[in-house]
């Protein structure tokens, strides 16, 4: 059972920052179709600041501290719905492993569950409301059911299921967030947060693959 240390997570966060930059216009376009066209831009603004923070990361920062820093940075810089949601996600995830310098794969699963719980607590959305939860929730179930002996396979299944969950948002009528007011006009469009969330989680997998 692999251990995930601070270096691993720093690497994953740098990948997330690169992903946010690379997919900025794609996420923005998705949000333009059924939202206000800022999702990719704001995630890129947030992760640009994350990179600055990582570049100046104090040596004594542990995993919990790192997650708190990333969460707070997103909270401060992103705004909108996804700022507090992603911010809480990372902060709550980190809080699960306070004081630990390394985390086990089971710890990681607990972290992600805690993070997703906080999204749900803050945003009060349900499965099928056409939000990022439509990728997170089914993904987490798969992750938790997976064999802990093979984290890479488990994370692969997790991300694949999240991606599938994102695809599944396309035919849905939005019930939360800005797209909600579009009603039937939201049908046929992918939810932008479901796309950004699987792509960000995919960075955990990529960093593990190295």
């Amino acid at each position: 059972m692999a251990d995930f240390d601070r270096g691993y997570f720093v690497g994953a966060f740098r990948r997330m920052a690169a992903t946010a930059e690379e997919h900025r216009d794609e996420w923005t376009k998705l949000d333009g179709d059924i939202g206000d066209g800022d999702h990719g831009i704001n995630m890129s603004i947030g992760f640009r600041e994350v990179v600055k923070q990582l570049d100046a990361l104090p040596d004594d920062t542990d995993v919990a501290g790192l997650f708190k820093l990333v969460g707070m940075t997103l909270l401060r810089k992103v705004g909108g719905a996804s700022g507090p949601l992603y911010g809480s996600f990372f902060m709550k995830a980190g809080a699960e492993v306070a004081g630990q310098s390394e985390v086990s794969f089971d710890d990681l699963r607990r972290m992600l569950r805690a993070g997703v719980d906080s999204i749900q607590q803050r945003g009060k959305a349900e499965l099928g409301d056409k939000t990022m939860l439509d990728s997170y929730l089914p993904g987490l179930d798969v992750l938790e059911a997976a064999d802990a002996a093979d984290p890479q396979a488990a994370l692969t299944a997790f991300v694949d299921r999240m991606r599938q969950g994102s695809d599944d948002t396309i035919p849905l009528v939005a019930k939360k967030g800005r797209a909600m007011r579009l009603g039937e006009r939201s049908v046929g469009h992918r939810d932008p947060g479901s796309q950004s969330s699987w792509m960000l989680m995919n960075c955990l997998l990529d960093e593990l693959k190295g």
Partner: protein
Amino acid sequence: MKRLLNDGYDAVEELLDGYVKAHGDVVKLADNERVVVRTTLSPQPKVGIIFGGGSGHEPLFLGYVGEGVADAAVIGNVNTSPDPIACYDAVTAVDQGKGCLYLYGNYQGDVLNFDMGAEMAADDGITVETVLITDDVYSAKDRADRRGVAGDVIVLMAACAVANTGADLATVKAAAEKANDNTYSMGVALSSSTLPVTGKPIFDIGPDDMEVGMGIHGEPGIERKKLEPADAVMDEILGIVLPDMNLQSGERVAVMINGLGGLPLMDQYICYRRVHDVLTEKGVTIAKSMVGNYATSMDMIGMGVTLVRLDDELEAWLNAPFDAPYLKQG
């Protein structure tokens, strides 16, 4: 469409820096660079009025910070709710011991962030109440679900008029709620705005099309139609707003024509004219008129009509003296 910017990632900070430099006699940045506050607060302690939302709606929100108007504006990224720390910092910057009122348009992102700010303030023992502005008739059937558009300015005026009397937080909140309950808006957009970071429009729209029920963020409206002459567009808007507010002959209203940024004042006054004529014809008295760019979407071509059902109290609030760079009267 074209903009005159530097790096789009710097646009909000440069806007705020430029704004406080231009209006340094009235406003400054708080310790938080996303919080615009009055240089000096009211000499008599009053409820702190905190107005906010995304940037890209100028002169909303920062242009309404000033004497007798908002005490602070909290500014997010373009079209994006401000962050919770800024929401909190605004409270600590303006609270005078009487508590604060958050006023902002009803968008989920704003609710999430402002609520977190209020929680943080509560931890400090400062009471913050919230009135969500919900004037956009076409955005939802139930008032509570509607978004806030140009009605933001109307609700702000009412809340500030009452706060300036030294009233307590509950009274100020009730005034804002009363104003909100009586405010009805609906708009159309002929173009998208252009985002500073990408330099691109948010959505495409045909040369002869308009988006009906457009908000002020570039969210798609509720319906896309062929563009019609100004009078026909006003008739269509009034055809939805008047029944919704159930406006009767003999009633009194305030009328606001809000330009979304790229629509010339010429067009706005031509729109005003039709609204004036239709209401007058219907036996409705227009007690107050406001025409101009009150709540924009940067360079978006479009406008909205806002009607406020008035009684003596509400009319007096809207005619109170205000002195902010973008709201001066009395």
